[in-house]
């Protein structure tokens, strides 16, 4: 027994190095998916990390799209993001996916349900610690997210459409908007083959075309 333990410890020391942090999984995925997708027959669960899908390059690109740096406690490169692909028999009818987001008084867990095109069907907090959590959880606020997609986050000032429901906790409001945008960016990257990139890179493409045109004229 002692020998086995010694070998195991050596193995641990030699192989150690790649780290993982706790991601955001649904507490009760069966119930959530039945509620969010009454036609669902089952779902498929995957755990995906930025590290595995694209490493530092993807991290940089994601931060660029988000317009903010990732935060080390909740958003390390090897956080496993849980994706629930919702099925009706063999057909994909939507996705449910959550992210951890730093809030004012602790971690928030933001859950989005989208259709197969990435349009939000529902949004809710699985966890929020805030003196005004009732206002954040209220349908008056969460309902405003319905029918939006990453397109609106890339092309419009989303805070004009979705107003802060709180009186003294705007930090949690800004964190919520940031977390939802991050959630949609990662969904686009991991599941939707970057279909919304055309909206993010629109201005960049336009600028490139203008530069090309100027060069042609020269």
């Amino acid at each position, binding site marked *: 027994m002692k020998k086995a333990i010694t070998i195991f410890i050596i193995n641990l020391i030699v192989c150690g190095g790649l780290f*993982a942090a706790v991601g955001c999984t649904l507490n009760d995925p069966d*119930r959530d998916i039945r*509620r969010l997708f009454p036609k669902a027959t089952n779902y498929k669960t995957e755990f995906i990390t930025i590290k595995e899908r694209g490493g530092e390059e993807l991290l940089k690109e994601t931060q660029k799209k988000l317009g903010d740096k990732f935060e080390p406690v909740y958003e390390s490169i090897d956080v496993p993001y849980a994706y629930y692909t919702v099925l009706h028999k063999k057909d994909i009818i939507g996705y449910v996916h959550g992210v951890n987001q730093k809030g004012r008084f602790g971690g928030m867990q933001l859950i989005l349900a989208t259709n197969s095109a990435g349009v939000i069907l529902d949004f809710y907090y699985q966890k929020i610690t805030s003196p005004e959590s009732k206002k954040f959880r209220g349908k008056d606020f969460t309902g405003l997210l319905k029918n939006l997609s990453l397109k609106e986050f890339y092309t419009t000032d989303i805070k004009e459409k979705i107003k802060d429901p709180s009186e003294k906790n705007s930090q949690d409001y800004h964190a919520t908007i940031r977390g939802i945008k991050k959630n949609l960016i990662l969904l686009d990257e991991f599941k939707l083959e970057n279909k919304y990139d055309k909206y993010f890179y629109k201005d960049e493409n336009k600028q490139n075309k203008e530069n090309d045109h100027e060069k042609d004229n020269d």
Partner: protein
Amino acid sequence: MVKTTENILLIAAAVILAGVSYAAAEGDFYKEALITGGYSDNDQWIGSSGRGMRNAVGFEYFRKFSDEYGDYMTMDIQMRFAYEDRESGDDAFGLEIHNAWLDFNTGLGSALRVGHFSPAFGLEPLIDTHSSLLQTLAMKNIGFKKDWGLGYRGLLGDFDYQVAAQLGSGMSIMAEDDNYLLSGRISTSQTRDKQLGLSVLYGRTLQASEMWTIPKPRLMSNESVLKKRVGIDYQSPLWLFDFKTEAAFGEDDGETVGGAMAQIEYTLPQQQRTKLKMQTIYWSDSLEDKNLRDLTLLPVIEHQLSDTTTLRAGYYHDLHSRKDEDKMVVVQLYYYGK
């Protein structure tokens, strides 16, 4: 016959673990290590908490099995080689199998579970306490946190329910004096931030003197204990705190027993890697005999050093104890990573 059954079950467990090793290339494989030490008024310098936390190294392997129709099976195996400094020689080393279960989906909202998992009673099935200094009431109430057997969970309108039929032997697979354990829990939905659960338990359990699976632990008695329990549990955010509580009452061989646990947790807003926790836990093996009660206060500070490593420090203060009342400081370094 009993010994043959035990051997067959142990071989089955070994086959499952061998299968895991083969399948590990496909799933999520994490290594973990616990380094625990401290100082106790009664025992002076210690290398374990004496309350479930030992120096240990191990792994967890988790995998979802899916096809074009979705997930059909989930597997979790978590085991550690542990060293108990209160023992000596070979008796100080053991293999702890914590989780070792397979979930078979039987429809959206229901699943059949087989293997080693928490009885369907109280908070233990909901909270991962395998590395935490703060434990639920399970150890004091049932005598162990996980057991071998079959379970089933499903949805009942707005409620979640789970039932389990297990061996009543805890960490190891043992058959002695007709041991078995039946348990059931019904609760409000786990999707909500407030959850209320009601539990019942009935069975004949064995009490082992060591908390590991291999080598087979010694029994404190060859006679099983007839346990009957009802329990209630509740967890909710409470302003800026997370609050958890549970209580259980019933009989052990006709003796009235019971206890309760309450825990509150706070994350420092400016330094969210740091959490402050406070727990109080009470248990009495005879509500009529004051000498058979334990009451402990346990404040804990927990700081996440990196994505994989957490440092915890706890202070155990016995207000009442059936043994010598103790005051103990325990520090734990916990690693969990790929």
